[in-house]
C-alpha cells in the first residue's frame, strides 16, 4: 500500500464537493486545521492608527529576539579579566572583563556585529517606547474596561518585564556606564531594610561587583525574561483575538459588532507590511545613528566615572527620582533606614506601578459599571480619567527630566541646585496643575462638540443680512457625525440616599459607599450633556426664523 493511495490521506472526496489540496488535508487529518481556522481566516480587525502602537512593540520585539540570537554567538558573559589586543587600538593592552572584550570584538571585528548590536539596542528603545505609548492609548480610550482587565494586567506585566530586560541587557557589556548603573542598583538593594545586605551578597555572589553577576544576568536576560515575555505576549494576543478588538464609535459601529477589514488578506498584508516598515526603520537607525558606543566609555572599574552619566531613556525616571530626593536617613536602634534611596527607587515606582496596575479595578469600583465595553472612549468624554492620566504623565515627566538635571544645567547654564529644587516643587505642583488644566480642556472640548451637534459645523461662509448684520452660516452635521459625537454615555456622580433606613439602621457597607460617592463626585460632577430635547428645541426654533 503506497502512501499516495492510502485511503483517507489527501483524498479530496472526504471533503465533499469542496476542492481541497492534499497538503492541507494531510495537516487537517492530524491537526483539524479547517475547523480550527474557519472563524479566523476572515476575522475582522477595526482600523485606526492608534491600534498600531502595540504592533510596533511586537515587531520590535521580534527584531530584538533575532538580533539577540546573533549577538549570543560571540558575546562572552564572563567577568574574567583579560588584556585586550583587538582591532580597537585605543584600548590595546587595557585590562578588562571578557564581557567587555567580546563586546568590543562584536563591534569591531565581527562583520555586521556592530549593526546587530545597534539593531538590538535601537529596537529595545523602540520596544519600550511603544509599550508605554500603547499603554497610554489603552488608558486614555478606556480600552482596559471589562472584559479586558486581565489583558491590561498582562500588558502591565510585560511593561515591567521590558524595563527589567532592558536594564539587564544594558548592563551586560560591562562598560563604565553600565557598570556604574549596576553600582547604583547594588546601592539601591543595600538600602532595603533587614534583607538588603543579604540580597546584595546573594545576587552579586559576595562583594560588589564580584565575578558572578554578569553570567547570572546573562541567563536572566537571554532565557528567563524572554521566555516570560514570549509567553505573556502570546497570551496577550490570544486575548485580543478572543475578546475581539475594540473600535471607535461611528455610524454602524456598536458595542455588539466589530467593523473592519478581514485578517486575510487586508490585515495580514497591512500588519505584515508594517512589520517590515518597523524592521526597515530600525535597520536604517542602526546603520546611520550610533547608539551606546561602549568603546568610548572604557571598561568598568569602580573608581572611575565620567561626568554627564545617563542611563537609557526608560530608566531616566528612576534616576531622576534618586536625584531629586532630599537626603533623609534614619538611624534607629543600631540600624540604618536610607529613605534617601528607599523612597525614590522603590517606594515611588512601587506606588506609580501599583496605581497603574489596579486602575481598571479602581475605576470600575467608582463607576459601578459592570457591563462589557467595546466602544472606545474619546479622552475628552472622560475628563477626570484623562486628567488623572495627564497628571501621571506629568509626574513621570518631572522624574524623567530630573534624571537629566546635570545636562539641563550645563546646556542652559543653570545651577543644578536650583534645578533640583525646581523639580522637587514641580513633582507635587506639576501633576495637580496638569490635572486641573486637562480637565478644563476636556470639558471645553465637550462643549465644543455639543455646540457642533446642536448648531452644526462652522462653514466659514459669512452672510450679511439686509440690516447689515454679519453671521456665519452653520451647516448641520451629517447623521453619522451627530451619532459619533453623541454615542458616548455621560457618567454622572453616584447619588447616595439617606445613610440610615426608616428604623435608623445604618446601611451596610456605608463607609465604603461614602468613599465611593466622594470619588464619584470628584470625577463626574462636572459633565456636559447633549440631549435630544435640546436638539429638537433648537431645530424647532430654527423653523421659526
Amino acid at each position, binding site marked *: 500500500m503506497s502512501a499516495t493511495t492510502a485511503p483517507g490521506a489527501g483524498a479530496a472526496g472526504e471533503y465533499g464537493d469542496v476542492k481541497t489540496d492534499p497538503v492541507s488535508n494531510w495537516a487537517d487529518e492530524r491537526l483539524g486545521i479547517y475547523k480550527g481556522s474557519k472563524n479566523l481566516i476572515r476575522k475582522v480587525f477595526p482600523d485606526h492608527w492608534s491600534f498600531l502602537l502595540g504592533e510596533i512593540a511586537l515587531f520590535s520585539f521580534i527584531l530584538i529576539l533575532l538580533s539577540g540570537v546573533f549577538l549570543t554567538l560571540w558575546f562572552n558573559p564572563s567577568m574574567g579579566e583579560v588584556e585586550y589586543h583587538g582591532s580597537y587600538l585605543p584600548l590595546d593592552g587595557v585590562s578588562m572583563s571578557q564581557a567587555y572584550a567580546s563586546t568590543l570584538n562584536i563591534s569591531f571585528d565581527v562583520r555586521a556585529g556592530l549593526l546587530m548590536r545597534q539593531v538590538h539596542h535601537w529596537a529595545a528603545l523602540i520596544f519600550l517606547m511603544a509599550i508605554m505609548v500603547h499603554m497610554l492609548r489603552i488608558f486614555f480610550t478606556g480600552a482596559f474596561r471589562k472584559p479586558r482587565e486581565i489583558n491590561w494586567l498582562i500588558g502591565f506585566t510585560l511593561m515591567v518585564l521590558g524595563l527589567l530586560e532592558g536594564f539587564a541587557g544594558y548592563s551586560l557589556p560591562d562598560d563604565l556606564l553600565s557598570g556604574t548603573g549596576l553600582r547604583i542598583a547594588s546601592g539601591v538593594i543595600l*538600602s532595603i531594610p533587614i534583607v538588603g545586605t543579604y540580597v546584595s551578597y546573594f545576587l552579586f555572589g559576595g562583594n560588589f561587583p564580584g565575578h558572578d553577576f554578569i553570567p547570572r544576568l546573562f541567563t536572566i536576560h537571554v532565557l528567563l525574561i524572554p521566555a516570560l515575555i514570549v509567553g505573556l505576549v502570546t497570551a496577550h494576543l490570544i486575548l485580543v483575538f478572543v475578546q475581539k478588538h475594540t473600535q471607535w464609535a461611528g455610524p454602524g459601529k456598536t458595542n455588539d459588532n466589530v467593523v473592519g477589514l478581514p485578517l486575510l488578506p487586508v490585515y495580514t498584508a497591512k500588519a505584515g507590511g508594517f512589520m517590515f516598515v518597523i524592521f526597515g526603520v530600525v535597520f536604517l537607525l542602526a*546603520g546611520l545613528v550610533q547608539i551606546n558606543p561602549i568603546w568610548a566609555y572604557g571598561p568598568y572599574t569602580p573608581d572611575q566615572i565620567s561626568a554627564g552619566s545617563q542611563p537609557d531613556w526608560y530608566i531616566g525616571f528612576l534616576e531622576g527620582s534618586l536625584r531629586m530626593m532630599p537626603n533623609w536617613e534614619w538611624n534607629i536602634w543600631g540600624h540604618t533606614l536610607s529613605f534617601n534611596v528607599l523612597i525614590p527607587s522603590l517606594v515611588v515606582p512601587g506606588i506609580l506601578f501599583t496605581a497603574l496596575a489596579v486602575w481598571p479595578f479602581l475605576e470600575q469600583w467608582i463607576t459601578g459599571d459592570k457591563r462589557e465595553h467595546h466602544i472606545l472612549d474619546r479622552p475628552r468624554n472622560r475628563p477626570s480619567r484623562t486628567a488623572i492620566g495627564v497628571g501621571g504623565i506629568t509626574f513621570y515627566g518631572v522624574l524623567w527630566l530630573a534624571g537629566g538635571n546635570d545636562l539641563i544645567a550645563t546646556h542652559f547654564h543653570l545651577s543644578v541646585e536650583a534645578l533640583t529644587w525646581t523639580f522637587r516643587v514641580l513633582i507635587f505642583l506639576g501633576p495637580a496643575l496638569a490635572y486641573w488644566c486637562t480637565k478644563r480642556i476636556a470639558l471645553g472640548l465637550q462643549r465644543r462638540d455639543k455646540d457642533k451637534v446642536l448648531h452644526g459645523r462652522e462653514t466659514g461662509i459669512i452672510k450679511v443680512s439686509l440690516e447689515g448684520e454679519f453671521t456665519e452660516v452653520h451647516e448641520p452635521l451629517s447623521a453619522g457625525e451627530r451619532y459619533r459625537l453623541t454615542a458616548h454615555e455621560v457618567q454622572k456622580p453616584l447619588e447616595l440616599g439617606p445613610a440610615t433606613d426608616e428604623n435608623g439602621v445604618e446601611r451596610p457597607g456605608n463607609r465604603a459607599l461614602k468613599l465611593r460617592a466622594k470619588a464619584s463626585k470628584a470625577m463626574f460632577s462636572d459633565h456636559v450633556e447633549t440631549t435630544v430635547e435640546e436638539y429638537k428645541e433648537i431645530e424647532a426654533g430654527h423653523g421659526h426664523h
Partner: protein
Amino acid sequence: MTDRDMETDHLPENTGGAGHGAVTTVAEDPFQDPGLPAHRPRVTDLDPRAAKRAERQVALLFMIAVVGVIGSMVCYTFVPNTKVHRFTGLGTVNMNNLALGLCLGFAFLALGCGAIHWARTLMTDVDLVQERHPMKSDPESTAFAVSEFKQGVADSGFTKYPLIRRSLLTAMMVLPLPAVWLLRDLGPMPKDALRHTLWAPGMKLVNPNTGQPLRVSDVTVGTLALANPANLNDDPDERIDNLAKAAVLVVRLPQEALKGSEAQKKKQWDWSVDGVMAFSKICTHVGCPVALYEQQTHHMLCPCHQSTFDLSDDGKVIFGPAARSLPQLPITVDADGNLVAVSDFREPVGPSFWERG
C-alpha cells in the same frame, strides 16, 4: 454594588421615544445610529489603468527589496569592516555598518511599503461587520461545566477524605521552599565585609596609574590625587572588589580653610599630614565614585546624583541625596616619607545598609 447605581436612562438609545410631531425635519431620534455608510470606491476600484499602475508600483517595491537584500550580502563581502569615514551630521562611521544598514533598511522598508500599498490600493476596503458575543458563558455551558467539575471533585473524594486533602495542601505549601533554600550558595554571608577595606596600619598610598607611593610633596593645594592601597594587586581575583571599597582621593587643604567645630577641625587636621588628607572616593549615597573637585571651595561632586561634599568641613554633605559625610582615612608618613594609612577607615565606606548603624 448593584445596577441601581448605574445611570442608564440617559443613554442615547433610551432617549428616543415620542418626539414632537410638529417638527418634521428631525427624525424620531436625531442621535440614532444611521448605520454603516455606503462604500466609496477608490480610484483603483474604478479605473483599471490605476489598478495596473498600483500593481506595477507594488512589484517595483518588492524588487527594490530583492536588490537591497542582495546588496547587503555584496556589501558584507566587499566593504571592509575596518574602513571608517567621517560624514557631517553622522560623525565617524564604519562603512561596512553603514552599507549593511542602508541595504537592509531600504530592503525592509520597500517590502513593507509594497505590502501596505497592495493592501490599500488593490485589496478590498469594504468594511465587514461581525457580531460580538458576551464573554460570559451561556447558562447551558455553565450548568454543564459546573456539574462536570462537581462530578470530578466527587470522584476524587477530595471532600470525602479530609486527611488526604489536608496533607496534600501541607505538601503543596512546603513544596516551594526548596526553591529558595537551594539558592543559599548564591553568595557568602555578608558578615562584616562591608565594614572593612584593604587599608591597614602602615599601608602605603600608591598612585593608581604609576604604582608609585604617594608623597606629601606630590599633593599641592588645589590638586586632586587618587590613591589605592599598595597591596591592591596582591590578589588579582579580588582586585576590583577591593578597589570598590578602598579607592581614596587625596587633597591638600590649608589649616585656615577648615570649617566646623574645633573638635572636628582638630580631628580632620590630626588625620592629615600637613593638610594632605585622604577621603573615601565612594559616594555614601549609592556608591558611585565622586569625581568632580572644585579647587576653590574644596567641594567634591558625585556626577551620578549630584551629591556635593565639602571636604573643608570634614566631607559633610552640602547638597544632594547623600546623607553621610565622605569618610576620612587617617594617614601619616612612614620613615621614607611615603604617605601611609594609620588604620582602616573608622566607619564603613560607600552606600548605607541596614546593619550599618
